[in-house]
């Protein structure tokens, strides 16, 4: 009996001991059920988050953090983002595009991989942002608020993981002196990032070339310059090994050259590599139930890869219950045809039969590839030709009309099979799914006023006031939230961040105090509400009502643009958007005394739902509409009956 009592006492102590320290278990079990969380991607409002700069929710993962240096880790993480979902909910955001989650080379040449684009291990989360449980928790919390999540991925290249041993001495020489044949001259080369050579980077001695230079993977755990994962990426054949691209107009350099900065180009033409990329990135979806991919540097990868990757990802996820998985690519390029070439599905621009046959040699599951590729792309041509040239440079609004005129041809009218769909399950064509944006992490922010950058006073050359620039920004945001496609807001825009080029445009959001009363925050919140309230603004077909070549001070329609949206998947919902991008004078969509013709029936009374006061505008008997807008302003008109 005594022994039994003693045992019970010891057991009690042990149990209470465990109780006092807490049991080791995660709050959210890792099992994730894949679901389709999106009805129609056109209803979404994307918010781009650079995780390292958004919110620091866990100081436990702040390794080597230097907030004063723009190019270093600052401490933001997934937990911080989760803790700030209220802020985003209030802003009206419905989808988060989060920066890459995979483990990176931590630091290179004094710069850190806070952005996430220097992948080292495609199978592990970046520990600076948290662990898998934190990422799962973020996604789950977002879904709990009906906020979707898009994951940023890179398939074109890996981080700076190896060097080309050009001189064969087994060490990375920087710089390496190389002789110029036939001359006494030498030039400096860098074995981590040597110049492109169509034959592959050549080994070279003082006596001349000696064949392909071997590559040597670095081994430095502290900076995570370690051999990559999955393991197939440790095979030298997994890379094109041609050196740094210096001419992006050369197709071979574009596709097979290393990305400047020593980012090693993956040989995505190899079937095992294609499968490895599908496996590696689909796994993240299976682990988290994330809803889409934003894919980096798509123009640096051959179309065959995109056919394989997108179709196999869709098929694999659909088999597990996830459809309407959205994939849009980034081609940092102003050429509309080029950017649109990645969304040519079906018969829009089918590849040659032999090319498709070659691609199909990589298929092992018996489901042959079609011509389909991405659902959408980041609309970079619009960023250059409209956001920059019209809204910042105050160019003619006819630019918009010209750009959009080729939209169907350049981006395609055929939805990807198994790709993005509408509420009825019908595919949505790429031309209606373009992801629109004002700025992002690769371009200066809209409000930037640095040297040589617009907007600036054209006469005195001094920067425009913040108030003026903010009005211009609000006008551009109005355009972004009402045009066809999906709006994407870069974090910090709502707080009037004004950073210039990378890394100046990657400010810490916490310096704003997450001010929800900030004027631009409130403006975006309002635009979000309007967009959600009036289906025409997200799903209606778009018809340009007014565009003008005129920008002169006496031109009544200088910098004025107007379009109406209705029909399509929006039913009867109707709206007109009128924008005066001129910062100095009133503007009106009229010329020669003739106001613009609209599609609304004569007698329809339209009401401005954007501005205070709810001013009304009747459609005349001949179907015209008169409206005058102050400088840098706009209006969203809907039938009073739909208000």
């Amino acid at each position, binding site marked *: 009996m005594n022994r039994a009592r003693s045992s019970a006492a010891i057991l009690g102590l042990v149990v209470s001991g465990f109780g006092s320290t807490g049991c080791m278990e995660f709050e959210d079990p890792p099992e994730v059920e894949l679901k389709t969380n999106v009805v129609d991607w056109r209803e979404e409002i994307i918010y781009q988050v650079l995780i390292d700069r958004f919110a620091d929710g866990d100081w436990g993962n702040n390794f*080597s953090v230097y907030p004063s240096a723009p190019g270093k880790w600052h401490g933001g993480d997934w937990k911080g983002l989760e803790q700030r979902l209220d802020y985003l909910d209030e802003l009206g955001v419905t989808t988060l595009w989060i920066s890459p989650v995979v483990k990176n080379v931590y630091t290179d040449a004094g710069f850190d991989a806070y952005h996430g684009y220097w992948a080292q291990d495609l199978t592990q989360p970046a*520990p600076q942002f948290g662990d898998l449980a934190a990422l799962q928790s973020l996604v789950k919390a977002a879904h709990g608020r009906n906020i979707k999540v898009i994951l940023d991925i890179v398939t074109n290249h890996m981080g700076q993981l190896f060097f080309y041993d050009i001189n064969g001495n*087994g060490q990375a020489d920087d710089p390496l002196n190389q002789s110029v044949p036939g001359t006494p001259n030498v030039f400096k080369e860098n074995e981590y990032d040597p110049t492109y050579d169509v034959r592959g980077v050549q080994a070279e001695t003082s006596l001349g070339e000696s064949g392909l230079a071997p590559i040597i993977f670095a*081994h430095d*755990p*502290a900076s*995570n310059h*370690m*051999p990559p994962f999955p393991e197939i990426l440790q095979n030298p054949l997994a890379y094109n090994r041609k050196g740094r691209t210096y001419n992006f107009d050369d197709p071979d350099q574009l596709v097979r050259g290393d990305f400047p900065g020593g980012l090693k180009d993956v040989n995505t033409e190899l079937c095992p590599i294609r499968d490895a990329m599908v496996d590696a990135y689909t796994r993240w979806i299976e682990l988290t139930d994330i809803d889409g991919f934003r894919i980096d540097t798509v123009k640096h990868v051959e179309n065959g890869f995109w056919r394989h990757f997108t179709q196999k990802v869709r098929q694999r996820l659909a088999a597990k219950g996830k459809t309407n998985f959205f994939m849009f690519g980034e081609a940092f390029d102003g050429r509309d045809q080029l950017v649109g070439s990645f969304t040519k599905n079906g018969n829009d621009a089918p590849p040659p039969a032999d090319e498709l046959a070659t691609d199909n040699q990589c298929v092992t599951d018996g489901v042959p590839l079609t011509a389909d590729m991405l659902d959408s792309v980041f609309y970079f041509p619009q960023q250059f030709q409209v956001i920059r040239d019209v809204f910042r440079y105050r160019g003619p609004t006819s630019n918009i009309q010209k750009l959009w005129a080729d939209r169907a041809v350049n981006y395609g009218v055929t939805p990807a099979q198994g790709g993005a769909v509408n509420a009825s399950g019908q595919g949505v064509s790429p031309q209606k799914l373009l992801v629109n944006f004002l700025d992002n992490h690769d371009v200066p922010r809209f409000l930037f006023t640095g040297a040589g950058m617009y907007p600036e006073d054209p006469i005195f050359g001094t920067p425009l006031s913040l108030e003026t620039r903010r009005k211009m920004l609000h006008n551009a945001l109005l355009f972004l939230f009402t045009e066809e496609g999906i709006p994407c807001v870069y974090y910090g825009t709502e707080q009037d961040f004004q950073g210039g080029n990378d890394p100046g445009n990657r400010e810490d959001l916490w310096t704003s105090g997450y001010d929800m009363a900030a004027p631009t925050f409130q403006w975006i919140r309002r635009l979000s509400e309007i967009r959600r309230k009036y289906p025409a603004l997200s799903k209606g077909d778009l018809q340009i009502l007014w565009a003008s070549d005129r920008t002169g001070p006496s031109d009544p329609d200088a910098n004025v643009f107007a379009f109406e949206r209705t029909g399509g998947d929006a039913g009867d919902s109707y709206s007109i958007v009128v924008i005066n991008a001129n910062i100095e004078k009133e503007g009106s969509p009229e010329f020669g005394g003739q106001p613009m013709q609209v599609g609304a029936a004569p007698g329809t009374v339209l009401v401005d739902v954007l501005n205070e006061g709810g001013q009304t505008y009747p459609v005349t008997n001949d179907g015209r509409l008169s409206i005058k807008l102050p400088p840098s302003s706009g209006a969203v008109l809907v039938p009073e009956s739909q208000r």
Partner: protein
Amino acid sequence: MRRDDAIFTRGRTLVYRAGVRRSGPEFGPRRSRLHGVPSALLAAALCASPSLAAAQTEPTVDPKPATSEGAPPPADAPPAPPPAPEAGKQADPPATNDGAAAQKREGAGDVKPAEPKAEAPKAAEAPKAAEPPPPESGFFLGSYGRVGAATDFRKRPGRDADLVARGSRLDESPYFELDVQRQDYWKATGTTTRAVITLGTSAPLFHYNADFTIRMAVRNLFLQANNIVTKGLSAWVGSRMYRGDDAYLIDYWPLDNLNTMGGGLRYDFANGRTFIAWHAGLNQPRTGFFSQTVARTPALNQVGAANVNILDRQKFITSLKASHVVKVGETAGVKAVLYGELHDIPSGQRETEVKGAFETLPADFGYVVGAQFGAFTGRDASHVNLFIRYAGGAAAYGEFGTPFQLAPDRTSAGARELWITLSGNWETGPLGLMAAGYFRSFRDASEGLDYNDVDEGIIMARPHFFLTEWGGIATEISYQAQQRGVRYQPPTPPGQPIPAPTNDPVMGGLFRIGFVPFLNPAGKGSYSRPQLRLIYLLTHRDEGARSMYPKDDVFSLREWEHFFGVGVEWWFNAQTTYGG
């Protein structure tokens, strides 16, 4: 040429005929006339060496096996005579160092309790006499130290000029040890325990370079229990220098000199003149042969780098020693020791320069067999000891050594080392004569000869003339020579054609004579310490010896070398290292 005639080979090229006994003329071109007689003697020994008679392989041994700092201290004391039974000895409280006590012993000033001279007979007879009082309990301090300051007459520091592994003590750099002991007699069991902490450090010292930092080693940290379980049985566990008798003049323990962490047992027979001792221990020299630590990404996707031991193997050493003293007359005796060691290194693997690729390191093995024969008078410190030690395999590289220049199977099989050492002291009236000499032949495990294959030796004598009880004058005369397994390239004056290397292995010789007036506060005696010295050494280095130093080293340029300075050496109660 018959292959069995060859004693040195370079690969398959025979370069040296053993059939010709190499006497003086063989070393002629590089020999000073001053070196004639001693070098002839030594050369004869070298050439007659059995190890030389076999075709060799490449060595590697650090030609200086046990450095002065590595092995010297406490026992830097007199050449250990036939020791009193260790158990009984250690059961006694450490001897005091008061002058009176020193006076009572012929080793005046040498406070080693185990001094053979007077102690051995006493110890042998003690058990038969009245029961001795129990050992004193308490803390005891001991120390060994030597300090010196010298110049070369050119205003540069005096420098140890020895060519061979073990040379004169007079030009050795400062070294110091502090012994802290705690001894307790446990009435309940009759056992005496002794915990020993020995801290050692070496030059440079603060007053020389103003550097406030110090590197200190824990040379001992063990506890020994005497008369445990049964009378005469002792056991120890800890980290320990484990040594037998030394050859004082050359600062060396010719038979056994181990540094391990482990333990041991010793049984002293009731006759007080016989014991056997066994020990087993581990060590892990800090080289890539035993351990390799690499950086890896931390587990569970943590940031940073973690160290991982890919290779982590220890050397296991066990030794067995048996010693017996035969009494001769009242105090004298003859001593015989048989000794053996086994060294075992397990197999392991390490990462190659190609990251992620591993190679296997095979297990390795070594052994030592040796013997000691000695005689002592027991009336004073007069004695003579002959040591013979042969080591094979991994043991040839020493207990702290790392096998190098390996055999094709990447083991140390084939490596071998022979030491033959003679050491002694004779004192009569105002005269004393200390003498020592050794011959050493080392071959590493690789085939053919190379720089690390070494034959060397020294003969040395230090006569003392005690002018009074408190001091006198000593001289030290020595000749040392070394031969290495590379061919000699004669120097060539500028502009002259460069001759072909000789067919002979390079050999250098060094003759030295010194004058050492000294003061012995504890009274006269060759081993009387402390001893304050004024030292002058004159060294002649022959051409072969100069060729063994790199270009621009002054030793490669100078034929004559001076060493002038002062020195002091002491030992107080410092004898805790002896285990066998």
